């Protein structure tokens, strides 16, 4: 279930200053990703989620309806990553979906399951806070015991807001109604998707342009398989590693693609 408080992303207010991106890095001690990834003449964006990019700033380059907005883990109430984790390392913590780094085996099931691509496994050598073979994602700054997520605190324009969920929904629906005049395709997501997401988002363009890449049937197969496998693998750490390898092998056999 979604938590008591939620984040609202208002992409019509976002100006692409990247304050959220950098404050996320700073707050969580994440290393830099070494130069923003720029495409289509947008220099205000960081495109990919990576183990060290928990929050990215995405932009569409249509001048008519140019939209920039931060993108982070949506903290779904019915999260595929939680369901797919063989070792139950991902769990719900008062609305936030949080990884337990000690339990994680780095199998990569969650990276495949997440429809937003917001969770990534650190495959490179350990670097600062990041350990090799652990999945990292946004934790809503909940593990750092902050009153407000860092990205929200630092937003200068009010594109990111943090408040009681009911209040935010009211506000957001009103805002969407206002925005319809200027952006006919304006809409709100996060109310019903994945049984409610802890991150509500106002889009100014239609969501067709969003990249959502997941296959429900595959997820279901994998989930079933791993709930069985995980019963056996809970006993020893060696078996944890095996489970991950098995998953990756199976995934390769089924889809023909290697997991990053």
């Amino acid at each position: 279930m979604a938590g008591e408080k939620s984040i609202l992303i208002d992409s019509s207010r976002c100006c692409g200053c990247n304050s959220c991106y950098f404050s996320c890095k700073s707050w969580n001690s994440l290393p830099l990703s070494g130069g923003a990834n720029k495409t289509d003449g947008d220099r205000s964006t960081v495109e990919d989620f990576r183990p060290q990019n928990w929050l990215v700033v995405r932009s569409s380059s249509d001048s008519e309806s140019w939209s920039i907005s931060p993108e982070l883990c949506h903290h779904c109430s019915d999260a595929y990553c939680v369901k797919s984790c063989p070792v139950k390392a991902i769990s719900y913590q008062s609305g936030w979906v949080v990884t337990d780094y000690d339990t994680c085996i780095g199998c990569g099931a969650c990276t495949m399951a997440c429809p937003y691509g917001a969770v990534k496994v650190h495959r490179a050598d350990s670097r600062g806070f990041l350990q090799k073979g652990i999945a990292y994602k946004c934790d809503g700054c909940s593990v750092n015991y902050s009153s407000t997520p860092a990205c929200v605190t630092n937003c200068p324009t009010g594109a990111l807001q943090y408040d009681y969920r009911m209040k935010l929904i009211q506000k957001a629906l009103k805002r969407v109604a206002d925005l319809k005049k200027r952006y006919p395709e304006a809409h709100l997501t996060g109310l019903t998707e994945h049984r409610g997401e802890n991150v509500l988002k106002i889009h100014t363009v239609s969501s067709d342009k969003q990249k959502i890449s997941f296959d429900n049937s595959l997820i279901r197969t994998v989930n079933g398989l791993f709930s069985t496998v995980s019963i056996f693998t809970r006993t020893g750490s060696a078996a944890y590693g095996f489970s991950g390898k098995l998953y990756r092998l199976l995934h390769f056999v089924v889809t023909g693609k290697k997991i990053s």
Partner: protein
Amino acid sequence: MQVTRRNFLKIATAICGVAATGGLAIFDYVSCIPFFKRKSSSQRGFCPFCGLNCALIIHYRDSVITAVEAEKSSFESGGRLCPKAHMIPFLANQKSLRELGVIRYADSNGFENRSYSTLLGECAELIHATREESFAIDRSGLKANNCESIAVVVGDSVSCEDAYVINKFSRVAGLTRVGTEALIKHEAAATALRATYGIAAQTNPHYDIKNSDLIVVIGSNPVRTSPMQLVAITEARKRGALLVVIDPVLSETAKIADIHLAIRPGTDLVLLCGLIRYLLHNDSIDKEYLRDNTDAPFLVNESFRVDSNGNFSGFSGEGKEYDTLTWSYIIDERGNPKTDYNLKRSNCVFQILKNNYSQYTPDRVMNRTGISSDLFLHVAGELAASSRPAKSCSFLFGGGLTESAGAQGVRAVSVMQLLCGNIGIAGGGLYGINNSANQQGISDQIGGWNCFPGYLPLPDSEKMENDYDLYIRNNSHKSNDFSVSHFWTGFKGYFESLMHCWFPDEDAKAVFDMLPRTSSGYNWSQLLNDIDAGTIKGLTLFEADLFNMPVPRERLKSALKKLSWIIMFETFPGDFSRYIGGTSFSKDTTVIIVPLPAFPSASLHFVSSERRFIAKKGLSLRQKSLPGIALALQGVAKKMIALQKLKGGVFSEPIVRCAWNYSSVKSVAKEMAGYSREQTVETVAEDSENKKENFHQPPYFCGNWLYADLIGSKSLLKRDSAPQQSLLRNTDRCWPAGAQVLFNNAGVIFKDGEPRHAKSVAVEDNAAITGQRARRRPFYFNKDGVAYLFARKMKSGPIPLGSLTVLPEIQESSYLLFGSDYGEADMAQKYKYYREYFPEDFLLMHKDAARDGGFVNGDYVSVKTAEGFTRLPLYVTDRIADKRYVKIAGSASRELLYSQDIKQGRSKFPVVVSVQKEASRGR
């Protein structure tokens, strides 16, 4: 709740209980910084990356900065930090920080380490030797007392104290080639503001934007340059203010704006002229304001004319300077300008404006700028509304405006704000966006090539200012109007207080004879020519990057090889010092690199762009033992005195007699702020409370009259504890005299001193001050006490007039180039971290133009102008207004675009370039 012992116990018990039961949830409100970072000491400071100087807290442990966080009560940003501020740990933690001084002698191969004091000795030797060779007491019959073969360039991250001491050191040694990087970015705007208001400064504090009803951003992109400005803008918009962005490119700011005017590049001035015409012809002006506070009623010399080409009388051919004889007011027998308070006579300034702007009809403006009539009329209507009482409009301008319209662009904006009566009231004013933090502070110390601290000019050799009385008379303008009490009246006091600091034992007249003379009008291209010709033999750089100079880089590189020595004071190596230290640089040049403490470990004062004093103490980090520029230069000066005494030298009096007794940075700050002869350190703070009104007489010792009594010695090196949110006068550390809103007397009625409307800042003042305000002209830096709509000091014309001629058609494969993202590019060059944000320079091209020309996104292209060329990656976008235009984002455009005309008049903008695809990708 009052904290009593009982309450404290209660709270402590409650906390323990919660901690025991609820675990770590207690940190919800205790912690502002991640748990695992908090085992550290912290100190208050501020951000050194733009003119806002947001307050922040630096956490450090074991001489390493662990984190920065915004101060929750920060009025600049409301407890937020922008991407740049997160670079502060990087500043002090990076490995390449210089800790050892190095020297490379001429004809030797590598750098050798030297102890700090030996290094200062070497510096003194070099400066002494060059000064001996080329010091001249006479130059072509005129008294000179100067040495023109040493140039000093000051970067834009040095502190006020450092800049002050640099100026002191240079002038005492007789150096006249002293320039600052702030001049490069700031000079055009400063020229215009000085010609209009008498001083170049931002009029209102940043957080005052929230009181505006209309915010116009022109030639600037605050989202990139100072993101936290958006906090105040957002607050204003919540109140219903309108945000208008004038920019040829759909920038990030334009994306969130209510109205975006996508004008053609280079047509800013025409648009502004069109808006001025709309105001004048629809009578949407504040006439009472104009009569009392501007020169609108002044009568102008009847032979002043403007011809059909937009040339003013006194025109003597293209490219030549105007004869400004006819640009004058008619003076009455008492020496004051004659006036017509009905604003009806044909030669009063108001009618001259009205006549000359009548040509900018909406049709013509729309033709030239390419915007639709609806948008133009909408914006013009909103602007007209801001001229009504209790309505205000604030203008934010940046490098884009001065680049395309030169100083006249800023003049046009100033005229518009004056017509609407928006200067000196809450929510009004002009905001020049400063990319570097201490631009205002450095300018206050080194206002130009020929300035003492506090904008006091050096004696001019061409005006034959060899007599002390003549010098004082030339510079202290006295008005015969009883209602004018302006700051320059006290020039003698300012100058003598400064000289008491520098030469405490000397008589002012004797000091005057020792000071260097100069003639005005030096600039960057002359500097380049002098280096190239070998006239300048030595170069001293203080955190400066000469690659920022607006001159062709290849020419600069070849010229630099002719220098006989370079002294660089720097924190960590940038592109420029890597080039000087590299193998490709000449081996005949002696190079000395003196290490400096990084920003977090230095104690210093900055002046933010709202003229506010801010201070921080140094942290004990890795470089704690290093002194800053101020103390290092004192070391050099003392060694020079020793050399003079040992060997003797030409004109050694100023050097030998100058006082150098700074014990710390604090003592420099104390000298700048001033103290009386009798005063001990303790009494300064108390006395300063009473002295703020009495500005014409700074204390006996005062290094910079602008700062007189603003910082008492108790509050030195401390940040304000309680930030001021109100715009009260005399409560804050803003110069001059604590005025947060400059010229705030413009908000009251001239006759009785009553506030004009609710936006008048004087409303917040108490009655006593209100009484004093009556019959005082507000623009106290100008001779006549009023702001000049008709600016006689502008060499390119007293009225800003845009050219209505349409650009000629250009050939197929040519494009028109514009762009000014220098600030970002400079940051990216200096700090590796910033490349995360701004990876490299690139060329923006319209989608259709790319399709026609056969370019693909990401191609490397070469951009050629008549003067130079550069290679860049190409980014295809459809956010440019017109497909004929291309824009360079980055510093490469500075070389291609910049021309010296920019300071006074129009630049050759935009430039025609050819863009060609390069065979290979990558550099």
